[in-house]
C-alpha cells in the first residue's frame, strides 16, 4: 500500500472516526472474546507452530466511564499470556470465572485454561475435555455459560451437540437428534436454552431441562438454500424489547436474514450485504448485534472491511442494503504486509460504547474504532 494513500486515509479518518487505534499483533487472531468489560482475549491459529493466547487490557481511555483527567496511553497491555500447541479457532470465556475454553484442529477435544493466578501472568492449560467425536469431523464449535457451575456447549454436528460441566467433565445434556448437518454457530440463549445454526442455514432450538429432548426441527425456508450460513444472537435476548428480532443469519453469498426467537422458522426480514464477491467459506464470516444501538448489525469476513447495517432501514423488497458505515482500515491503514489483501477474521462490539468495535484481520492487525455518527461514507 503506497504511503501516500495511507496518509490520505488517515486524514479522512479524522472526520470518519471519533477514535481510532491500530495495533499489530505478532500473530493474527480469529477470536476476540471479552473478559469482563476491560480486557479481551486473542489467540493465534497457526498450524505449524506454537500459538499464543493473550489477555489484553484495553487502553484506559476505552474502559473508564467517568471522565478521568488524562489517560495518556493508547496502548494495549498484555496482562496475561499462555502457549497453545494447537491453533485456536474458537475461544470462549465462562462469565464471572477465570476459565477459558478453546477448540481447534487437529481433533475435536476442548482445552480449558486458567486465567487468574496471583504470582504469575502465565495462562495455564488446566485440563482437556475429550468430546468423543470422530476426529475427522470438522472442529468443534463452542459456547460457554455459568449455570450452577461452569459449562461448555459444544459440537460439530447437530447430532453430537452436548453440554459438559467443565470441572467434573460430566455430560449434562446430549442432543437426541438424527440430524447430522454440520454446525456453524452455537449459543446459549440463557443457561437453559441453546440455539444451534447449521452451515445449511437451519436453526435448532432446545431446552436443556428436558435432557434427551430433540432439537427443534425447523424446515429451511427457500431463501436460504445453496449457501453456507452462520448466526449472531442479540446479547440481551431475555428481557429485551419484545418487538426486536433476535437472530441474524449471514450467508457466504452475502444474504442477511432476521428471525424472531418466538418463531424461528419464519423469516422476518432479509437483505443483501453490499459485497462484491461471495466468500468461499464460512471460515471467517461473522455477524453480530450491537449491544447499544438498536437494530444495528456488524458484518465481516468477505474481505478487508467491516460493515455496519441498520436493519430498521432495510428495503422491504429484500434487496441490497446500504451499510451505515464501512470500516476500511485493514486495507487502507498502510501496514507493511507484503502486498497481500488482508481478510477480516473476526470483530466484536464494545459492551457499552455505542459505536465502538474491535476488528482483527489475517495480517495480524487489530483495530479499535469508534465511527462518527453524523458522517456517512461516500
Amino acid at each position: 500500500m503506497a504511503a501516500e494513500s495511507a496518509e490520505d486515509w488517515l486524514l479522512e479518518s479524522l472526520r470518519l472516526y471519533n477514535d481510532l487505534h491500530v495495533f499489530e499483533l505478532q500473530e493474527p487472531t480469529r477470536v476476540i472474546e471479552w473478559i469482563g468489560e476491560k480486557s479481551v482475549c486473542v489467540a493465534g491459529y497457526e498450524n505449524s507452530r506454537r500459538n499464543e493466547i493473550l489477555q489484553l487490557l484495553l487502553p484506559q481511555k476505552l474502559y473508564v466511564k467517568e471522565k478521568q483527567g488524562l489517560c495518556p496511553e493508547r496502548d494495549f497491555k498484555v496482562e496475561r499470556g499462555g502457549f497453545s500447541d494447537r491453533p485456536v479457532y474458537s475461544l470462549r470465556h465462562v462469565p464471572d470465572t477465570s476459565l477459558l475454553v478453546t477448540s481447534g484442529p487437529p481433533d475435536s477435544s476442548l482445552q480449558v485454561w486458567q486465567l487468574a493466578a496471583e504470582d504469575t501472568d502465565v495462562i495455564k492449560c488446566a485440563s482437556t475435555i475429550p468430546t468423543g467425536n470422530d476426529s475427522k469431523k470438522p472442529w468443534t464449535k463452542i459456547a460457554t455459560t455459568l449455570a450452577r457451575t461452569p459449562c461448555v456447549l459444544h459440537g460439530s454436528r447437530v447430532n453430537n451437540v452436548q453440554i459438559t460441566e467443565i470441572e467434573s467433565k460430566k455430560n449434562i445434556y446430549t442432543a437426541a437428534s438424527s440430524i447430522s448437518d454440520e454446525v456453524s454457530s452455537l449459543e446459549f440463549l440463557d443457561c437453559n436454552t441453546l440455539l444451534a445454526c447449521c452451515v445449511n442455514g437451519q436453526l435448532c432450538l432446545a431446552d436443556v431441562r428436558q435432557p434427551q429432548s430433540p432439537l427443534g426441527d425447523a424446515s429451511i425456508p427457500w431463501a436460504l438454500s445453496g449457501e453456507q450460513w452462520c448466526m449472531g444472537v442479540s446479547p440481551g435476548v431475555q428481557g429485551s424489547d419484545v418487538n426486536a428480532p433476535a437472530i441474524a443469519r449471514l450467508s457466504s453469498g452475502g444474504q442477511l436474514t432476521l428471525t424472531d426467537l418466538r418463531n424461528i422458522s419464519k423469516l422476518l426480514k432479509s437483505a443483501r450485504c453490499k459485497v462484491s464477491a461471495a466468500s468461499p467459506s464460512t471460515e471467517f464470516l461473522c455477524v453480530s448485534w450491537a449491544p447499544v444501538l438498536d437494530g444495528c448489525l456488524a458484518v465481516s469476513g468477505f474481505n478487508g472491511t467491516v460493515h455496519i447495517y441498520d436493519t430498521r432501514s432495510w428495503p422491504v423488497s429484500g434487496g441490497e442494503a446500504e451499510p451505515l458505515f464501512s470500516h476500511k482500515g485493514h486495507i487502507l491503514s498502510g501496514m507493511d504486509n507484503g502486498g497481500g489483501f488482508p481478510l477480516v477474521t473476526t470483530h466484536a462490539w464494545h459492551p457499552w460504547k455505542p459505536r465502538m468495535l474491535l476488528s482483527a484481520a489475517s495480517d495480524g492487525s487489530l483495530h479499535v474504532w469508534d465511527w462518527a455518527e453524523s458522517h456517512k461514507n461516500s
Partner: protein
Amino acid sequence: MPEIKVTPLGAGQDVGRSCILVSIAGKNVMLDCGMHMGYNDDRRFPDFSYITQNGRLTDFLDCVIISHFHLDHCGALPYFSEMVGYDGPIYMTHPTKAICPILLEDYRKITVDKKGETNFFTSQMIKDCMKKVVAVHLHQTVQVDDELEIKAYYAGHVLGAAMFQIKVGSESVVYTGDYNMTPDRHLGAAWIDKCRPDLLISESTYATTIRDSKRCRERDFLKKVHESVERGGKVLIPVFALGRAQELCILLETFWERMNLKAPIYFSMGLTEKANHYYKLFITWTNQKIRKTFVQRNMFEFKHIKAFDRAFADNPGPMVVFATPGMLHAGQSLQIFRKWAGNEKNMVIMPGYCVQGTVGHKILSGQRKLEMEGRQILEVKMQVEYMSFSAHADAKGIMQLIRQAEPRSVLLVHGEAKKMEFLKQKIEQEFHVNCYMPANGETITLFTSPNIPVDISLGLLKRESAIGLVPDSKKPKLMHGTLIMKDNSFRLVSPEQALKELGLGEHQLRFTCRVHIQDPRKEHEMVLRVYNHLKGVLKDYSVQHLPDGSIMVESILIQATAQSEDQGTKVLLVSWTYQDEELGSYLTSLLKKGLPPTTA
C-alpha cells in the same frame, strides 16, 4: 569457569534510574547513571555504596557508558562523578554529549531554584563531569584499555541514543539502553549485527504492551489541534529538542495544506537559535533516507509555519505555537501558557514526561490552580492534553532484537518479574536461551564458555580429512594433533610437524609378548587354529592370515616361533606398538586363556 556478573543498581524491577554494573573478564563497567524522577530524597540516586564499600570508584570501574540523554539514564552522572567521586572515562555518543549538559542544567535549575534543594550538584560540577566524557561514533570500536573495547550501535528512540557492545577477548555483553524497532519520521529503527554476545541486557518497560501505531497517535494529535483551532482556540505545544518538534511541524504543515486551513502556526525563536546547532548534529546522526527528507524540506521554509514574536500571543483568533522549554518551567512557553491558561477554548499539548516541580508536571497531574510568583494564583481552564510520542520497544520489538543479535542469554531490566513470566517463557522457548530478571541489588552470574581460536596447519587438515568419511558439517569431527602454545599464539599441527619443530626424532615403542600354547601339532596347523579362533571371536576387528604364516589383528602381529623347549608347547610372539596397547593386552590375555579344543 569464566563468568559475567550483572547487578542492577537502579532499574532492575523499578522504572526510573537505570544504572547497571557489569563485571566481565575482570573488567567493571557501569551502564547508565540515571535519576529516579519520582523521589525527592536520596532514593532518587542509584545505590553506589553497593559497588565498593572501601576503595575508590575510579580504581574499581574501568569505564562508565551512558546510552542517551534522558534523565533517568544520565541524571545522576554529575552527582556520581563529582560528589561521590569518579575520574575515569565516561563514554557516550556525540549528540548525547551535546545535549546531556543542557538537560542536566535545566534539571538542576528546577530542583535547586524552584524546589530549593541544597544537596544537589552545581553547574560547575556538570561542566567538570562533561570534561571526563569521551564521545564515540556509531560502529566505531573504542579501546578502553588493551583488553576492554566498546562499540556503539544505533538505537532509535531519541537523538543520539545508542546500544553498546562491551567486549573483552571473546566474551561480550550488549546493553540496549532504551531503543525501538519501528522507524518514525525523523529517527530510524535500532539495528545490531549478529554479534552473538554472551548476554543481551534489554529494557522491557513496554515489553508487556502492544503499541498503537505511530499514525494513530499522529491522528490523535491532529484531531486535537484541529478541534481547538476550529472553535477559535489557541494551541500551545511546549517542545525541547529539535527532532520531535520537526516531526510535528511537518505533520501540521501537511495537514494544513490538505485541509486548506488558515490559522497561523508559529515556532518560537528560542527554537531557531539552537536549531542550526542541533540540525547539524542531527543530520549526521540519521540515515540517508531521512536525511534526504530533511534536506529537501529546508527546515524553516515551511509555507504555513512562521517565526513567533511574543506580541502575537495577544492576537485574537486561533493559532498554534511551538515554544521552548518543554516542561513549561520557565521562558517563552511558560509566558504564553500564563496568557492562554484562563480560556477553556485553548489547549496545551504536553509532549512527554515532565520533572516534578515544573508547571508541566503539575498540570499533567490534574492541578488546575497554580501558584505563580508573587503568590498569584493562576486558574487553568484551558484543555490539557498529553501526547506520548516517545518510542520504546514492545514485545515484538524485543524478539526482533534478540533475533538480530543472537545472544546466548538475555537479561531484562525495567520490568516486574511477576508480570513478565510470560515474556520470559516466550523468549526462552523461542530462542532456547536463559532469560533473567534480577531485582535491584541482585547479582546474576553467568558462566561462559569462551571460544579460544587456534590456528590449524594445512597439512594436518588435509591429512585428517583424508581419513574416513566425508565430514558432516553438522557434526563435530574428532581430530588428533599436537597443540603448541608459544608467544601468545595457539597452533594445532601434526605430531610429526611438532617433533620437527622441536628438533626431536620420533621414537617407536614396540612390545612383544610370548604366549605359550599347548599344541603338539605342527606349527602351521597351530597358527591356522589360532587364526580361526581369533577370526571367530574378534568379529569387529580385521584379522588376516598373511602369506608368510603370521597373523595380523588390526596392526598387531602374531607369529609362531620355533623356539620352545618341548614339542607339546608352541610359542606365539605377539607384538604391538605403544599406540595399540589396549588391543595388544587384550589379545594377549585372550590367547593366554588357551585355544578351544579342536573338533575332530
